């Protein structure tokens, strides 16, 4: 176990796999000597050299598109897209190419690639550099979507994502890069599709991931002081989704609040609500609640941005409304 930041943990996950498997390489804008816009790949160029950590031009379509081709030939690319907002510039490569090759080719191809990209608001980076967008990717059959909310998960999910034989969107959160935690050494794998109860409780289940996991844990502390015992479940990966874990938790608490930073309409909270309504209706003794951002682009002004981002207060309010 080593104490490290979420950012170091992502890097450690990549490093472990790059050492173990010579087919793993990193390509993206400014990822080499510069270490990436947020410093996540810092040092990897020095460690692994210019053949395995490569700067690309500003050409998102070919960053993701080349990864599809390379992965189809058996390499394991980690393609970095500097902000998840820029995925719009390479969606065809993900949703029509990477995601569908295996199926369209009758199972005769595999595309073991990772697209690593940061998401999230709170930096005053405005409408085109602050989004989350995970439900874009969960809506593409053939792609897996991973959203770590702690340092240990950041490492374990990275290793699992690289080892997975499918295209994986690995979406890290900008606000979490400095978050520290104990991270297991060596080949630590967190399997995709396995949720984690981050806080046990009996009165209400909160399902939250990424930055909102941390906000929900903080809200749960405050609610505990008021006598409400919250269980916080982190799905860690949205596709595949550990719905059994969610249903089990709701069967225990009878109440469900889903928290996400994406806007509410067509956010992944809608999917989780639907699953619980379909398969766990009898467990519920209150309506399902969603806490999410309003259906707007992300504003620049700090006061507006803070209004936009789901807050601890809003989570607390939503939970209390169920009692």
């Amino acid at each position, binding site marked *: 176990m080593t104490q490290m930041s979420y950012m170091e943990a992502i890097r450690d996950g990549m490093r472990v796999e790059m050492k173990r498997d010579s087919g793993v390489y990193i390509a993206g*804008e*400014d990822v*080499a*000597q*510069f270490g990436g*816009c947020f410093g996540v790949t810092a040092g990897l160029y020095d460690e692994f050299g210019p053949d395995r950590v490569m*700067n*690309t*031009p*500003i*050409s*998102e*379509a070919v960053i993701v598109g080349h990864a599809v081709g390379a992965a189809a030939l058996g390499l394991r690319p980690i393609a970095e897209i500097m902000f998840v*907002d*820029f995925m*719009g*510039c390479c969606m065809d490569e993900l949703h029509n190419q990477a995601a569908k090759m295996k199926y369209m080719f009758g199972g005769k191809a595999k595309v073991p690639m990772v697209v690593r990209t940061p998401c999230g608001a709170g*930096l*005053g*980076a*405005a*409408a*085109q*550099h602050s989004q989350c967008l995970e439900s874009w990717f969960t809506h593409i059959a053939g792609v897996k979507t991973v959203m770590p909310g702690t340092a240990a998960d950041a490492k374990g999910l990275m290793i699992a994502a690289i080892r997975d034989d499918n295209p994986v969107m690995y979406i890290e959160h900008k606000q979490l890069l400095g978050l520290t935690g104990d991270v297991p050494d060596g080949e630590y794998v967190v399997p995709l599709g396995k949720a984690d109860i981050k806080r046990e409780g009996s009165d209400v289940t909160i399902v939250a991931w990424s930055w909102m996991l941390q906000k929900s844990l903080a809200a749960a502390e405050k609610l505990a002081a008021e006598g409400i015992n919250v269980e916080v479940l982190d799905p860690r990966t949205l596709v595949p989704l550990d719905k059994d874990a969610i249903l089990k938790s709701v069967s225990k608490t009878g109440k469900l609040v889903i928290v996400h930073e994406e806007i509410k309409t067509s956010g992944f909270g809608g999917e989780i609500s639907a699953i619980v309504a379909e398969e766990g209706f009898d467990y519920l003794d209150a309506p399902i609640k969603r806490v999410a951002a*309003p*259906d*707007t*682009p992300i*504003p*620049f*002004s*700090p*006061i*507006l941005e803070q*209004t*936009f981002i789901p807050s601890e207060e809003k989570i607390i309010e939503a939970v209390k409304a169920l009692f």
Partner: protein
Amino acid sequence: MAEKKEQLLEMYKTMVRIRTFEKEAIDLFAAGKFPGFVHSYLGEEAIATGVCANLKDSDYICSTHRGHGHLIAKGGKLDLMMAELYGKSTGYCKGKGGSMHIADVDLGILGANGIVGAGMPIATGAAFACKYRKTDNVAIAFFGDGASDRATFHESLNLASIWKLPVVFVCENNGWAISNSQENHQNITDVSDRATAYGIPGVSIDGNDVMAISEAAEEAIKRARKGDGPTLIECKTWRHRGHFEGDPGAYKDPKDQEEWLSDAKDALVRVEKKLIELKYANKADLDKVKADAQTEVDAAVKFAEQSPDPDPSEVLTDVYTV
């Protein structure tokens, strides 16, 4: 000759206003007055100035993440810009956009842009509308060397060339795309070579020579207004600062940095020398221009600081046109 004097003095004023605004913005950002990203235009002032000197109010520009200079050169008001940097309700975008999204559609400024290379298709579309409506207005797309690697660049030049659209593509080649040098991100030294692939004129010019830029832009804009189609102009320059404020620019060779910031190369110092040499102005005249710009910028800061924050309910407005 009187006209030339007027023009050069006007361009000098614009360059000084850009430089003064940018220096102030850097200091204010460093002092924590506003969050977000600030991409400084210091060193590249001649390009926006030389190009926009040839535009009418009814012409259009599409800017970039490094947009302050383009906006000022197209007539953007410093107080409304500064208020936007501060995220205030009086800013150009009511505080919703910040540095990377300042726009003034009434002035033909179709926005700074946070997505690299996104302005070129939009400028192409603006040029299409200008032609469709049978006006002689034109659109300018500003973009960097890095952006010329995006598909949007190639698709825009191609479409504009076959439809003979009144658009001028102005590449600000400052040698860098964040930390990636031009030689590492493209296999050519002149971005203008790419014009050949689309059968349109392409020129490479000194991006720190405002007169040369103005002349090249004049020709391209004339051509566009006449209906002869697009031109690619590459202006070779250097950004004085890091990619954004907070980036120390450690990847630059200090010798290059020193050379480009020297009086011999600095775009603003070069105009000053020219003005004095041609006896269009004396030192006192130049000092007055600088003092006026500082006064204007100071007033803009005061306006921004005294302006109210947006009301939180503003989060929900202006999502759709109703």
